Structure formats: C-alpha cells, structure tokens
C-alpha cells in the first residue's frame, strides 16, 4: 500500500515539475513573435504557414480544454438530477449569451494577472476560442447522457458496474458520436471567431497575436488582395486537410459507438463517406481510443487526486495531534466564512462604484438599440431559413449531394468571416445598402451554419419507413413536405434556431461596429453600443449596463419563446419507437 502511494506521488511530482518548467519557459520566452500592424512585406507571405500553425496551436489548446470541460460538465448535468437543475440552465445562458460581450472583462483579467506579458494575452485568446467551442460540446454530452437506453443502464446497475469503470466503459464511449459531430461544429465556430481572438484591444493598448486571423484582418485592412487571397488559401488548405485526416476517419470510427435502437437492416444515419475513408475508419476500428484516453485520464487525474488527499490527510493527522479536532473544523468553517464575506464585500463595492460613475447619455438608447438589433437578427434568420431548409433536405436525402456539399459547407462555415468584414463593408458601402445591410450579412455568417448543421442531422434522422410510407401512398411532393418532412424536421429546426440565434447575438457584437482604415462604421444597435462603450467612450458603467440588459433580454426570449416552442415541438413531432 505504501509502495503504491509512493508510486502515485512520483507520477504527480513528475507532472508538477513538467508543468512548472513549461510555465516558466512560456513566461520567459512567450509563444511566437508578434505581427506588427500594417507591415505586409513579402517575407510575411513566407511566414504564412507558420502563422497558420500558431493559430492551429491556439485552437488545439482551446479544444483540449473544451473536451475535458464538456466531458465532465455534460456527465454531471446528465447523470445527477440535482446538478441538472443548476447546470443545464447555466449552460443554456452561456450558450445563448454573446460571450464576445464579456470579452473585454476576460482579457482584462488574464492580462493583468500575467502582468501584460505575452502569455496573458495568449491565454486570453485561448479562453475566447474555448468559449466558442465548449458549450455546444457540453450540450452534446449532456444530450447523450439523458437519452441513453434505459435497459443498458439497468444492465449496468444489475451487474453492479459503478464509478470509474462505468464512466470508462459506458458514459465516455456513448458520448463519442455526438462529441465528434459537435466537435466539427466547434472547430468551425473556433475558426470563425479566430480574428477577434487574435486582435485584442484593452482601452488604448492593442495586442495582436501572430496568427492567420490577425494576418487576414491586417491584409483586408491594408487592402492587400494578394495577402487576403494567400491567407485564405492557406487557411482553407489546413481546414481541408484536417477534414480529410482527422474528422472523416473520426466520424466513421464514431459510428461504432452508436446504439442500434431499431433492429433494422437499413441504416438511416450513415454519414456520407468515401469508400477509401471507410477503410481508414475500418482500421481504426480496433483501436479503442476512448479507453486509452480514459486510462491516461485515470492515471493523471485519479492518481493526482489520491496523492493530494493522502497529503491532506497527513497534514490533518499531524495537526490533530497538536490541536483538538473540533477546533480544526471550526477554523476551516471560519476561514470559509471570512473568504465568503470578503468576496461579498468586494463584489458590492464593485457594483456600487460602477453605478456611482456617471452614465453616458447613450445609456438611454439601450432599449431602442436592442430593438433594432433584434430586427436585424430577424431579417438574417429569415434569410437563413430560406436557403437552409431546402438545401438541408437536398443534402439529407441525397447521399451524392451530401458527399460533395457537406465538406464545402463545413469548410465555408470555418472561414473566419470576421476577417472578411472590411471587404464586405467596402462592397456594401460603395455599392448599395450601406452599413445596415452589411451588418445583416455579417450576422448571417454567424447564424446560418448552426441552423444547417442541425437541419441536416434532423433530415438524416427521419426514419426510412416514414419516407417509404410517403412513397407507398403515392404522396405528392407538396403533401410530402407538409405532412412528413417539415413536421419531422421541427425539433432539429428549433434546436438549430436556438444555437443559430446564439451565434447571431455573438456576431452582432462584431457586426454593428467595424473600424476600418481609421474610420468607424456603425449603426444603432446594442452590439455597436457595447463596442462604443468599450473602445470609444471607455465607460465601464455603460459597458456593464449594455451587457447585462442584453443578457437579460436574451434569457427572457429563450425562457418564454424558444424553450416553450421546443417543448411543444418535442411533444408533437417526436418520433418514437
């Protein structure tokens, strides 16, 4: 026993030393050099692959964090009733609230904690990418947990499989299909937001991190068509390669973690795959990655935890030899109480001082700004529906179309549209429509992809026999759409809309207010107001007030509109066996 503990301690110590060394190295030397604004010498083009690699590393770091986060969060929310009541509404808010709105505060935190070092800015950007990836993955894990087949759970209970073994053998593998699908979406979302993560402004200080996102933006700003073109080509190449060597094989491999709910020979949920990829997937078949992953997990986390608890127990027993046990308990309680009180006081002072600051006169515009922003979102939503509904049916029902169009859509969704804003803006301002139309187009880029991803999944999940019924009874096309397709798509349409609106609100923050060539282009809207408060007026009170009113507004809409709608759709249009 003692030997075992010693061994665990060794693990933990090695890990600790490694972490400290890594931390110091990063602290001292930083990650990658900075790219300076406006300088686009030919040498910069040669550095493009390197810049893309930096961005990729940021994405990867954020994704690994999101993966661990979602596996833990989704698991607790989905398997613990009491946790569910808190965690799910919280996730709901996190997902639908424009995280970009909180970004100034987050950057401020990271940068000041790390003394304005490069590392702090780097962490802030990873954090922002994380927020664009994590929620939807956590939801995926949660959804898997609550839809696990009842009999499988009974089987595990009756075999007395609990704790870690149950997580490793059951929960983790079950989550794989949804996790892979949502990861693709998350990576697309991450690339999309990359520009905003690599150009970080705090008041007067501007940080730009070396990466493909900042490169694209600078190129667009400088009007360098060559830079834009080469940048996009490099990025799209990387995304395509990732698709071919990572996501495709993973999608096929993930199929083996799917339950067969219906005993049937026709599978309705097969993704479009080239036969060559089937081979790769087939070879992967025998590699049980979640199991391996779980083992690493187990070694690091569990052993680490046990070492910590052993240490704590030692300290405790040493202490209790000197001081009576009761006193220790009281001391711990007191410490927590003091800490809690301190935090409460700090928080109250913060809120108080915030509202003692004079509110700029722009604060009166908040309700109207929200109203106008809402109108823009509605227009963007209608445009999204007009093209995504027919296209998703086309893709979902036709294997060939899916094989060609899905990768195109997945790649298009990944293009950091935020980097292209200057170009879009230029086009609309010079030709027609002006900033208002430009803003709507920009919102659209942040909204439509979520809707189509969800819709395609929905159409694919329509059981084959329902479609056969339509054919067997000789339904007309119109009738088929009204009686079969649209009702069956309803739940996924609503889920997609909720996420899509979340993406839309997020895009709003960067769409209504664009700085380009030293000029500010903006419209009246809550996103613009927030940016104005942050970058122009530097008014923290207005900033907080805008974010809070926006959050309250979104949460209210979600509670009283989308959730209700979802409940109705889930009851009326659910396909059960």
């Amino acid at each position: 026993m003692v030997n075992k503990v010693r061994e665990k301690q060794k693990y933990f110590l090695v890990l600790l030393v490694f972490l400290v060394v890594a931390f110091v190295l990063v602290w001292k030397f930083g990650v990658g050099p900075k790219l300076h604004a406006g300088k686009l010498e030919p040498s910069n083009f040669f550095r493009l692959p390197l810049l893309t690699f930096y961005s990729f590393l940021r994405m990867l770091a954020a994704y690994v964090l999101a993966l661990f986060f979602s596996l833990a969060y989704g698991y607790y929310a989905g398997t613990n009733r009491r946790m569910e009541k808190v965690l799910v509404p919280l996730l709901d808010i996190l997902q639908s609230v424009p995280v970009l709105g909180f970004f100034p505060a987050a950057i401020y935190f990271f940068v000041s904690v790390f003394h304005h070092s490069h590392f702090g800015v780097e962490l802030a950007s990873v954090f922002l990418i994380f927020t664009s990836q994590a929620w939807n993955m956590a939801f995926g894990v949660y959804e898997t947990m609550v839809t696990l087949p009842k009999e499988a759970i009974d089987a595990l209970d009756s075999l007395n499989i609990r704790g870690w073994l149950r997580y490793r053998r059951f929960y983790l593998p079950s989550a794989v299909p949804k996790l892979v699908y949502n990861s693709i979406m998350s990576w697309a979302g991450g690339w999309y937001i990359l520009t905003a993560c690599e150009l970080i402004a705090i008041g007067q200080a501007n940080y730009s991190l070396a990466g493909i996102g900042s490169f694209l933006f600078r190129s667009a700003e400088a009007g360098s068509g060559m830079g834009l073109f080469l940048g996009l080509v490099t990025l799209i190449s990387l995304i395509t390669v990732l698709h071919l060597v990572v996501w495709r094989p993973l999608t096929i491999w993930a199929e083996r973690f799917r339950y067969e709910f219906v005993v049937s020979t026709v599978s309705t949920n097969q993704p479009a795959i080239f036969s060559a990829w089937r081979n790769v997937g087939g070879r992967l078949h025998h590699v049980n990655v979640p199991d391996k992953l779980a083992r690493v997990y187990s070694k690091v986390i569990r052993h680490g935890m046990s070492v910590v608890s052993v240490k704590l127990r030692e300290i405790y027993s040493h202490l209790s030899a000197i001081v009576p046990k009761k006193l220790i308990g009281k001391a711990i309680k007191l410490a927590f109480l003091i800490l809690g009180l301190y935090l409460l006081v700090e928080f109250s002072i913060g809120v108080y001082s915030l509202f003692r600051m004079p509110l700029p006169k722009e604060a009166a515009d908040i309700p109207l700004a929200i109203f106008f922003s809402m109108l823009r979102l509605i227009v963007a939503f209608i445009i999204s529906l007009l093209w995504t509904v027919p296209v998703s049916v086309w893709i979902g029902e036709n294997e060939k179309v899916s094989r060609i169009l899905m990768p195109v859509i997945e790649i298009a969704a990944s293009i950091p549209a935020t980097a292209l804003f200057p170009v879009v803006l230029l086009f609309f301002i010079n030709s027609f429509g002006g900033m208002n139309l430009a803003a709507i187009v920009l919102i659209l880029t942040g909204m439509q992809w979520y809707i189509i991803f969800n819709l395609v999944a929905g159409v694919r999940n329509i059981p084959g026999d329902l479609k056969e019924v339509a054919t067997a009874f000789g339904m007309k096309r119109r009738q088929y759409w009204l009686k079969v397709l649209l009702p069956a798509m309803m739940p996924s349409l609503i889920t997609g809309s909720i996420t899509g609106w979340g993406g839309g609100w997020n895009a709003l923050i960067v769409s209504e207010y664009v700085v380009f060539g030293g000029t500010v282009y903006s419209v009246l809207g809550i996103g613009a107001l927030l940016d104005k408060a942050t970058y122009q007026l530097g008014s923290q009170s207005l900033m907080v007030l805008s974010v809070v009113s926006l959050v309250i507004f979104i949460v209210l809409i979600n509670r009283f509109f989308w959730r209700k709608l979802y409940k109705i759709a889930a009851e009326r249009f659910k396909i059960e066996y």
Partner: protein
Amino acid sequence: MPLIKVDHVVKEFPREHSSLLVLDDINVEVQDGEFVALVGPSGSGKSTLLRTMTGLIMPTRGQVLYKDKPLRDVNLESAMVFQSFALLPWLTVQGNVELGLEARSISPEGRKKKAEFYIEQVGLAGFEEAYPRELSGGMKQRVGLARALAIEPKILCMDEPFSALDALTAANLREEVIRLWSEETFPVDTVLMVTHLIEEAVAMASRVIVMSAHPGKIVGDIKIDLPYPRNKMDEQFNQYCDSLFAMIT
C-alpha cells in the same frame, strides 16, 4: 425460508402533478429452485415487479426480503437478461461478457477464462472477438445470457428475453435456458422471467404468476406440474394455458 419475499410492496412513479400507481400491495414468496414466470397485459407492472425483486428499483412502500434480509441495493447474487439485449456496441463479445466480472475485481486471467467458458456454454465459441453488430438477434441474446451467467448468480432474471427474436430462434433459446437451469453443476437455480406469452410461461416455468393492469395486482398464482421437455400438443399443457387465459380476461 423463502429465497425472496415481496412484502406489501407498493410502487408509485411520480408524475407532474399526481403519481402513477404501478404496483398495488404485492405479496409474493419465491422458493429456492423455482422457475417463476410473471405474465400479464402491458401496464400490469410485471417488469417493475421483477426490477423491485432484484433491487434495481426501490419500492415506495413495503419491502423486499432476500434470504430474510431487506434488500437495500441491487442484489449481487442475481443477474438480468433484457429484451433489447442491452449489449455495449463498442465492446466485443468477450468484453461484454467480462463486464460484470470486471466490477467484481476478478483478475484479468480469471475474467478471461470465465468469460470464455460461458461463451462456450451458450454456443458462441469462436465468436469471442466479434462485435454485437456483427451478430444476429439470437446470437446477441446468447451474449446477454452469457454475460448474466458469467457472474455466476443464484437468481437469473429475464425481462421478455425472447420477444425480439424470431419464433424459431426463440424456441431454441428457450430450450437452452431450461437446460442450463436444470443442470446441477450450474450456479443458477432460481429463474424469474417476465413474459406476455402464456404459452411461453407454461412451456418453461414451474410456477406462473398472473398480473392485471392499472394498477398492477396479482390475480393468479399456479404451479405448472409437467415434466420437461414439455409438449405443446399435450392436453394438460393446453388446460394450463386455458385457465391462465381465463385469469387475464
């Protein structure tokens, strides 16, 4: 001393505003060595009763005694076979069968040996490395059976184990279960089976308990005194079936 004693068990499932009464004051005693079939229409709570008897579900009121001790958790001396097989699709046949042994912290070699033995017993030798999706329905249920037997339970519980199988496959598996139950060397000596087929109950069980629906109540309890193998053409067999039918309708 009865092996299992169900003592005034009431089970309610909470609903939004009210609660649904599924089991209404159930009293049953199961003796060591019996093969008990629970039959009844859907909604009679037979599956719920089975799960209560093994400790998968806790009763709202009343209690279940196992060897005279109240059951507070899953009974580790029982194992269950399911209608949908409930196999884990990412584990091989071997992996699925070893699952219950892993939870009982048996050494890897011991697990392997035991799993192989029971896989062979259910007639699946050679399929150890196959995945569930590569198997037919009947073979999947054999894996489910091997998984349950591998933990060497005293009680084997089966919840509509043959409903998802075609008639021929079901008939074969029924015979096999009876063979395993009657063999002296096997640890399983008591079987509890839920079914909605009266003929199946009469063909297999030594005792049939009949339940009625909404709420679930016991309306009949008879011993089937026929030697194995039983013949469906037999007059007595049909008499049993008829009297059970009369109890349900």
